[in-house]
């Protein structure tokens, strides 16, 4: 079973990398970019076939390692095929 975990910075957490990317887009001539926040995407392949169990395991992984919940949010997405 395949899954994606999206990790993004919480609102209010300063994102200097996002700011730099925003500036670079501006200097490339892309106008109207109000703001850019950057994050991470993890693609995970699991042996687990039960979606509920897989989801629970991915939540644990996110909390324990993939995201630092002091500054980051995470969202788990399962490919249910």
């Amino acid at each position, binding site marked *: 079973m395949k899954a994606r975990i999206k990790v993004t910075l919480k609102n209010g*957490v300063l994102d*200097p990398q996002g700011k730099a990317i925003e500036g670079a887009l501006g200097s490339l001539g892309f106008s109207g970019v109000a703001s850019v926040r950057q994050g991470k995407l993890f693609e995970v392949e699991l042996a687990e076939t039960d979606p509920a169990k897989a989801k629970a395991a991915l939540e644990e992984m996110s909390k324990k*390692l993939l995201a*630092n919940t*002091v*500054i980051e949010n995470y969202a788990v997405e399962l490919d249910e095929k």
Partner: protein
Amino acid sequence: MSIKSGVVVFPGSNRERDMLSALEKITGKKPAYIWHADTELPDLDLVVLCGGFSYGDYLRTGAIAARGHIMPAVAKAADKGVRILGICNGFQILCEAGLLPGVLMRNAGLKFVCKEVKLEVANADTDFTRKYKRGEVWRCPVAHGDGNYFADAETLKRLEGEGRVGLRYAEGTNPNGSQNDIAGILNERGNVFGMMPHPENMIEPLNGATDGRALFESIVEAVA
């Protein structure tokens, strides 16, 4: 008076030799070299997590080392009241391990900063700063890309209110955008301290100054 100290080394640590040398000079006793794959610590008064780039800073700085085999033993030692000092990557690891609050984010200027800064002693009533005077300003080098201390407003208020900010960048030398110019913080109990600058590189005249020595002497005095 001599204390028993040890330095924890992870794959990618690179300041262990400086730290081992500084500890031996100051305590007069050979410190223990502790490998990350060990699961137990020797009997120590001070455990140091040194600087470097553990696991290549993959995922987040200190994130993977913080979940290493030795870390439950470090947490257990902290629980028992053993002094734990995290320098640079060691500070990042302590935050990721939850032994200190908050997190060290990418420097606000997005650049790796390697230079000398000024540190002000915000609280001289700690096991790590007692040989300094409150308000004293001293010289210390920094070398990091992720030293921008961040905690939520409530945590920050607690740290400030409880005197847990031990050191601040002084005289406009904040190199990373750290909130409230925070350079070093304590845990609630006061036996775990993390700081981004490198006092182990400021202990003998050859380093240009000996300003960092008092930090280690503070710990020696506190343990005695």
